[in-house]
């Protein structure tokens, strides 16, 4: 590994994930390359169906990739197998979107959090295991006695905390948060995000934070990647992206964030995108965004824009950025 990339925990290169669907190939993730640095939070935003969840799952090898590589600490996880992969999974965990579906309804919280310990033979004696579980519950702000209850007895926010405790059980260094707050009440969203931030500070975690709520992503992320139709269209530091978005799609997304000031909100010019997201089975030629782009030209239909550095550390895939 070269010296310049040595602070990259995850190095994704040319990642592709295609699904065979009736009538063609769905290019859910189409040539994604980026690196995630040790200790940072990379926010990933985009519309529903843009491939951000698939990207997160493929990076963790929950789906087998169609092409590409993901280096974790310099080792390609797609080349690992058997026990090596299992060991690597300890370092990479996931927090899921739907706190109602991500916990087995038949298991008590204790068994749910015990599962990763048992899978990796870290359980120790019953007493030790119980102690570790109570510790984890405490870390995520739940009480020890909650261990004996069942998922249906908890609220959405509490279930999400259980999901986070389970992800933390094996002491991972990298966590993919797949829209962890989308299913939660607004008042609970902030609590969960703040919990994630505290955990990051205390344990030095690296996050890939997938969301469609731009305001929340800005709050938690160091860098933000914007995805459209399986491709990354813009990548920059969070502050920079929100201050100076270059890609028309990012600009449209940002203009949709409501401002908590009625006067500003009334005067604000919203860029309303026309039409629906095109089918990823049949993406448009050239720039994938051209069918909805207010500034599209003929060049966009024929030439695929490459992701290029428009400013230092600010990348955009647009001919006119």
């Amino acid at each position, binding site marked *: 590994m070269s010296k310049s990339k040595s602070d990259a925990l995850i190095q994704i290169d040319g990642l592709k994930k295609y699904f065979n669907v009736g009538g063609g190939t769905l290019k859910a993730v189409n040539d994604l390359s980026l690196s995630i640095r040790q200790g940072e939070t990379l926010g990933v935003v985009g519309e529903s169906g843009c491939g951000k969840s698939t990207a997160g*799952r493929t990076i*963790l090898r*929950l789906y087998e990739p169609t092409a590409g590589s993901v280096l974790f600490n310099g080792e390609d996880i797609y080349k690992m197998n058997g026990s090596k*992969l*299992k*060991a690597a*999974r*300890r370092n*990479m*965990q*996931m927090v*899921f*979107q*739907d706190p109602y*579906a*991500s*916990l*087995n*309804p*038949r298991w*008590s919280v204790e068994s749910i959090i015990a*599962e*990763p310990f048992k*899978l*990796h033979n870290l359980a120790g004696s019953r007493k030790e295991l119980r102690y570790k579980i109570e510790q984890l519950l405490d870390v995520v702000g739940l009480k020890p006695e909650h261990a*004996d*209850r*069942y998922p249906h*007895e908890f609220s959405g926010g509490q279930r999400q905390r259980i*999901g986070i405790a*389970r992800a933390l059980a*094996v002491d991972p260094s990298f966590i993919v948060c797949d829209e962890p707050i989308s299913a939660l009440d607004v008042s609970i969203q902030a609590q969960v995000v703040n919990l994630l931030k505290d955990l990051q500070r205390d344990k030095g975690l690296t996050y890939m934070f997938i969301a469609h709520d731009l305001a929340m992503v800005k709050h938690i992320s160091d860098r933000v990647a914007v995805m459209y139709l399986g491709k990354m269209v813009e990548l920059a530091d969070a502050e920079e992206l929100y201050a100076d978005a270059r890609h028309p799609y990012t600009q449209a997304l940002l203009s949709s964030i409501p401002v908590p000031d009625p006067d500003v909100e009334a005067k604000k010019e919203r860029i309303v995108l026309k039409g629906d997201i095109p089918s990823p089975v049949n993406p448009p030629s050239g720039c994938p965004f051209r069918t909805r782009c207010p500034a599209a030209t003929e060049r966009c239909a024929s030439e695929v824009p490459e992701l290029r550095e428009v400013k230092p550390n600010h990348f955009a895939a647009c001919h006119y950025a």
Partner: protein
Amino acid sequence: MQTTNVETNKGNIDPGKFAKLEKTPKDVVESGSKSRSAGQEILYRLYTNSWAMVSLGILLVIVFFAIFGPSMSEHNFYSNNLDAQNLAPSGDYWFGTDSLGRDIWSRTWKGAQISLTVGLVAALADLLIGVLMGGMMGYFGGKVDEILNRFSEVLYAIPYLLVVILVSVVLGSNMWTIILAMTITGWINMSWIVRGQIMQLKNQEYVLAARSMGAGGFHIVLRHLIPNSLGPIIVTLTLSVPSAIFAEAFLSFLGLGVQSPAASWGVMINDAMKTWKYFPWQLLFPAGLLTITMLAFNIFGDGLRDAFDPKMKV
């Protein structure tokens, strides 16, 4: 909680109408009821369903007599006694005797043994093969699913009476041939139910979570998928027992199943048919028990279904 502060309010609230709570709502919630697991909930719902419990009681009584009934009577089930043909129920022959002078009490409970054995063994065989096949179809999907599904559709299309006749021609008719013949086609229903369940469950996020923790296929199927499909599996199992019992009685009645002198409810009903106007008890006991057993299994199965899925209850 703050009932004493009411007096300081300016409104016209009469403090006399308020009393201090002994326990705050918070105390009540925290002392709370003990959490019940899904399994305990199911048992509780089953326990409070009186129809299901009565059926279970009846089934236990039938099982008891099937085991101990034949040895209670001093007459065995196969010996002819030409001095005691077609006797009515009495202190000596509790259920009377048949046209060959055999004791109907012993024969009835011997028949119950056969019926229950056929019902349980056939249902267990269906369970084993059905869960295995359905599990593979659902979990692997794709090509595996396609091939196994076509295979089971072909089997399903063969009339099962034909299978029974073929099997009994080749292997001779007895209890085990019936079980074998019923299993050849019987597992398909179970496999489709399991397949549907597993297909639905395997994309749940908790399964994905287990995989992200490094769980293998075995762990996922045995610890996550099968336990969560248990409801429909058990219900299908309970409802396939009476249908197997009925199929055995029906085949034996037609002469394709258990053969005399072995006793089966179907054989006994067939024997009694010719003379039922004169000796109705010969028909009454096996037919009545067959009916009661079927009914009890069906009601118990319904109760189980309601217990597993309270939403299904009308």
